[in-house]
């Protein structure tokens, strides 16, 4: 008679879970991954595998040390490893993805408290750190169509002031300009990003405001064709949809999200115009705004907002 189960309301819950959400992220980034591997060959697949494998292994080691048993596989570390692999250039030495995944998983994610507590985007930290460590070999530019190394880098020359009137914008969108493995497949990245927005997994405000700001400000400072080439060649589309929308380091309110995207866009364009390295501009911008957001998270700006009290 008294063997009934007891639990607190509500008695029904959704079917979604944390792993299912990150699985949707992985599905959205697979087209860009396949495009990169088809263009760049087996070496790029090896780079992605090393990045993903090291991220997963570090996460398992940290879980075993903290809890002394493995509860479940954390799919978010697989996702972070994939994105880090996609930001690497295709012919880099295999130490780069190893160091990148190690730093991202252990130093940024685990030491700040685990999932959901990171104060800065771990992909940006990993990319900027390896770019500084691996210097000249990081910036070898390979044409995605022919696979041939070129010394003429179109992105740097445009940032220096050259004009891009002879470049067809549509060709840039569909074939890509040299860069990281996943940064060249513009159309597939946009398809993945729109799929995530439609599935209501990420907020559409941050990528939209970021892209509008960079296009608008870039048009004033450079010109339309030039801005498209800069966007395509420095990985800004990957950053807009997959790096800036990290849950723990991006704001959720309407006004805060708009200011976040605006700030990131302005810093990106300023680094293109007056900075040293146009290839890393979106990643520096993401570092900057996420750290500022984490620093001012606790301060309530809108003190006289009406709250219903009982």
């Amino acid at each position, binding site marked *: *008679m*008294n063997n*009934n*189960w*007891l*639990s*607190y*309301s*509500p*008695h*029904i*819950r*959704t079917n*979604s*879970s*944390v792993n*299912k*959400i990150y699985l949707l992220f992985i599905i959205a980034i697979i087209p860009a991954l396949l495009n990169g591997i088809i263009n760049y060959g087996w070496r790029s697949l090896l780079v992605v595998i090393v990045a993903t494998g090291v991220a997963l292994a570090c996460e398992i080691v940290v879980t075993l040390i903290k809890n002394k048993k493995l509860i479940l596989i954390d799919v*978010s570390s697989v996702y972070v490893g994939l994105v880090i692999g996609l930001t690497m250039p295709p012919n880099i030495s295999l130490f780069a993805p190893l160091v990148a995944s190690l730093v991202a998983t252990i130093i940024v994610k685990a030491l700040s408290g*685990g*999932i*959901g*507590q990171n104060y800065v985007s771990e992909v940006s930290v990993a990319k900027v750190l390896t770019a500084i460590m691996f210097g000249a070999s990081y910036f070898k530019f390979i044409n995605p169509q022919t696979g041939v190394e070129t010394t003429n880098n179109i992105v740097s020359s445009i940032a220096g002031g050259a004009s891009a009137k002879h470049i067809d914008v549509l060709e840039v969108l569909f074939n890509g300009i040299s860069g990281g493995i996943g940064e060249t497949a513009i159309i597939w990245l946009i398809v993945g990003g729109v799929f995530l927005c439609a599935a209501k997994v990420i907020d559409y405000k941050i990528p939209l405001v970021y892209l509008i700001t960079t296009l608008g400000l870039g048009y004033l400072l450079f010109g339309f064709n030039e801005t498209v080439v800069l966007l395509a060649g420095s990985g800004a589309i990957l950053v807009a949809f997959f790096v800036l929308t990290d*849950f*723990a380091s991006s704001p*959720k309110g309407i006004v805060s999200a708009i200011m976040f995207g605006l700030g990131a866009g302005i810093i990106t364009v300023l680094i293109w115009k007056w900075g040293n390295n146009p290839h890393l501009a979106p990643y520096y911008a993401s570092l900057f705004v996420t750290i500022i957001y984490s620093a001012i998270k606790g301060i309530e700006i809108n003190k006289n907002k*009406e*709250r*219903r*009290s*009982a």
Partner: protein
Amino acid sequence: MKIKAFSYIKGIKLPKIKSLKTSEEVKSLEEPSVVYVSVKQIKGLIPKPVVVKGDKVKVGTTLACVGDNYIYSPVSGTVMEVKKLPSVYGSITDAIVIENDKKGTVLPFIEVQDAYSKEELFTAIKKACIVDYDGVAVFKKLENVKTINTLVINAVTDEPYETNNIEIIKNNLKDVLYSAKLMATAYNIKKISIALTKDYYLEFKKATQLVPAEELEQLEVCLVPNFYPVGDESELYYALTKTRLVGNKPIDKGTLILDIYTLNTIFNLLTTGMCDINRLITIHDATKKQITETTVWAKVGTSIEEVVKAVREEGFVGVKKLVAGGPMRGTALGSESAPITKGLKSIILFGQNVKDVPEEVPCINCGLCDKVCPAKISPMSLDKVIINTDMVKAKEMGVQACTRCGCCSFICPAKRHLTQRMQYAKEFIKDKGI
């Protein structure tokens, strides 16, 4: 009859559960031989019993009272004893056990009249202790009120296991409109409207064919989308007028919102002198793959065990979890001997295939709970603050505005027990007097 459609932005769309009705008509259960009347049937102070063993009672005799809160007997007979029984709210309270002599001699509350003035209506509703759907007494809404502009009849169904508003619309729409008109004449209310969810408009239209046309002329039909919790008073007011109430109730702005079942009860009171003897209750049987529902009229005070045994052949075999109320706000009961109160709408029986309580994993800061909260507080930040037992900060962040709707716990992908934590904080603040 004017029809208007409204939109409602906050809240969540709950998955619809398809259930099969066991019969088209609503039948009445036969009279039980023993009746248990629980003393906790209205929100407020708990009444003390005033009868002892051996007293003879009629329908309408006072069994327990404290202040303005009275508990009346639903049957006539002899009092057997006063003992402690579990209640449908989860606690253990006194219950008066009466042996039913099945004669039904009545001691009416009021004299029946054709027309009622404002004071007579208020006195009648106050004496009969009629409750609205959330357990609050109706007379508390009407106390000290200056003017009422609109009377809204709340017939909204927003939970997946449905309540029985649709049966009242099918069978008693004429009575409901008659009592609404009596209230409008007494309180000088200009506009009467009825709020429905869009799915039930066709059934409502079929039911209006039984009502004479002149009573429907001035009625306004408001269609709202089926998003939970649009059935709550403040949320319905927001859906109809797009203004947020801050620390107020709708009655302060001149809108009286009453449940459709409450108006049916007021009709019984004003035309027969007696009310709240029987209760319309729906039993949802979710133990098998095909979910069935049965709606019956049962006498107030019947124990849940008897009701389920009369409706379901196997009795309690295969039932693993018993929930009194809806799936989002209801209480899980530990024993079947709890008796029916005059505010209980439905019972849900879960079987072996019910899911276990999920385990919590760390919060990923996705922000879905902030988006769906109807009270516009932030469960994501309150979760962290309450875990650190910082209740002063929690009170500043507005945890007392939580209405326990359960939307945040429902949508959380990390399966965190957010509703439970908010309720814990509210009780902590009340106990320690922060």
